[in-house]
């Protein structure tokens, strides 16, 4: 069977993972109307592609994620961001599946984005980089799969913005996705979520070090603005119960309140740390572009306002997961996806996981979620003819 498939490209490793130039002959047609090409996509792979190339799993990362999903992150030195889910013997078993994760278009860890050099000016793009959408990210990933010689994914999985990409994959390339697992996401970005993003963007604009996006020219970065953006966003990833459990009203390094504006409460110290560590690993302009891409996301809008139309006739098997304490992408919004899939008579499972850990629960140790997804993946693998635990 493999004789009929196009040849596999050699993977040129650059540190952990690879980087490929795409769109040289045919550019990427962006939603904003511009053509992008050539462009770069940085990605990592784990495991081995089997002979008929049917065991590929695409992991889509969230807003501030990257391609280092299951290896030590080269920038932070910390374990990959989804080692709870992906690795040998895990739910996404790298002994069984060929796992691909790419840095999204507009990102800042090797894929083309505002931080990369604009070949036309030999300077970082900054705000000259075209505005991108979730669909653009997915189209870029599809070109990466073409490059890798993978016609159909066994599974596309992701949480939050990663879940949006999974939905877009199922909508744009239904025949290329056997199973789809959108977690803690929505078919459109809500007004409240756009509002939170705008707070973050305004914090970046307000930082004098931002220089209208040309901060690298000035040999600086808008630390304060990006840190505030992260702090505000981080609150939305947690829940009141989780914050209370972790910090309550505990004071920071003091016995009693001091009637001043130093860091008085532990929760303040925690947020400051979240903000300051974030600016070490993330680009402020990328943050602007990617939050914008999420804001623009409205899957029903791509099909005349009726979400079910997006999935009409789909053969993809879906498993939608939400979390009880997630107020960023609450169960009601996840269920809108389920409702549309039902209306399209699609094959869909849905679970709401009980947890007080908020939106970030999808990244954490949630045994019920693992058990559910393990069952879903095993069931799909059987239907796809992938033997259990088979190594290519």
């Amino acid at each position: 069977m493999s004789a009929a498939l196009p040849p596999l490209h050699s993977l040129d490793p650059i540190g952990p993972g690879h980087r490929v130039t795409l769109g040289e002959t045919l550019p990427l047609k962006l939603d904003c109307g511009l053509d992008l090409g050539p462009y770069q996509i940085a990605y990592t792979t784990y495991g081995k592609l089997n002979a008929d190339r049917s065991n590929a799993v695409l992991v889509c990362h969230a807003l501030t994620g990257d391609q280092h999903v299951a290896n030590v992150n080269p920038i932070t030195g910390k374990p990959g961001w989804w080692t709870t889910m992906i690795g040998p013997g895990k739910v996404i078993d790298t002994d069984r599946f060929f796992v691909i994760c790419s840095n999204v278009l507009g990102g800042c860890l090797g894929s083309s984005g505002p931080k990369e050099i604009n070949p036309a000016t030999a300077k970082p793009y900054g705000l000259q980089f075209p505005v991108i959408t979730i669909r653009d990210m997915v189209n870029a990933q599809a070109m990466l799969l073409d490059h890798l010689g993978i016609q159909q994914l066994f599974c596309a999985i992701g949480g939050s913005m990663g879940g949006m990409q999974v939905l877009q994959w199922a909508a744009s390339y239904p025949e290329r996705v056997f199973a789809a697992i959108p977690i803690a996401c929505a078919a459109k970005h809500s007004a409240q979520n756009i509002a939170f993003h705008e707070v973050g963007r305004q914090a970046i604009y307000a930082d004098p070090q931002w220089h209208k996006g040309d901060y690298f020219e000035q040999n600086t970065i808008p630390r304060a603005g990006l840190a505030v953006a992260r702090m505000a966003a981080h609150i939305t990833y947690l829940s009141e119960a989780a914050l209370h459990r972790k910090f309550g009203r505990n004071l920071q390094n003091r016995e009693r309140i001091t009637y001043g504006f130093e860091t008085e409460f532990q929760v303040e110290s925690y947020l400051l740390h979240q903000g300051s560590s974030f600016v070490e690993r993330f680009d402020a302009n990328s943050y602007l572009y990617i939050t914008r891409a999420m804001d623009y996301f409205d899957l029903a809008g791509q099909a005349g306002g009726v979400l079910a139309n997006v999935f009409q006739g789909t053969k993809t098997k879906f498993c939608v997961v939400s979390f009880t304490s997630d107020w960023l992408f609450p169960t009601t919004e996840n269920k809108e996806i389920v409702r549309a899939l039902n209306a399209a008579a699609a094959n869909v499972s849905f679970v709401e996981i009980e947890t007080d850990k908020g939106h970030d629960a999808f990244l954490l140790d949630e045994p019920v979620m693992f058990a559910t997804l393990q069952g879903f993946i095993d069931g799909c693998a059987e239907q796809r003819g992938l033997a259990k635990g088979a190594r290519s």
Partner: protein
Amino acid sequence: MNETRALVPTRHQDIRRDLLLIAEMVTPQSRLLDVGCGDGSLLEYLASEKQVDGRGIEIRQSGVNACVARGLSVIQGDADSDLPDYPDAAFDYVVLSLTLQATRNPRKVLHEMLRIGRRAIVSFPNFAYWRVRAQLLLGGRMPMTAALDDPWYETQNIHLCTIKDFDQLCARDGIAVEQRIAVDGHGKRLGGAPANWFGAQAVYLLHRR
């Protein structure tokens, strides 16, 4: 809502006797929605024995997880609120086993089932079963039987009915009864008038007239 599914399992691993009666009514290779599918034993049985393309709705998270872990397509939801999401004639069968009496609006649920499915299969405990009558008549207490095993203050059953009641509702609402199986406490099938006296529960195959 599936607390009402408490009958003793018989053969076929752990599939309940009343579910086998339902399975009997289903044509092979059809599309079926099991509303209140519990741990998915009916769906799994139908998939393996009759190659049925099944979907489920279940209210309890533990039930949904059990189903999805078995490779079944099941969503968390309930009969009262989630049926309107499905398009017309999406399934060959819509099944509701021992759950109708626990819904807020059984009549509406019944019509929703017949809108979504070309046929509906409904089972319920018969409140005119002689043991039920006897307990109320002679004991003066709310009846408790194998099929009605919770005390009045804990039961989910808010819309109990008898076989006669259900026949009447079907007649009034233009619902055709294609097949009716009533069984006594030992699983013995009963026909005709004795059904409403000696039937502990009944299974109906219905379609719209």
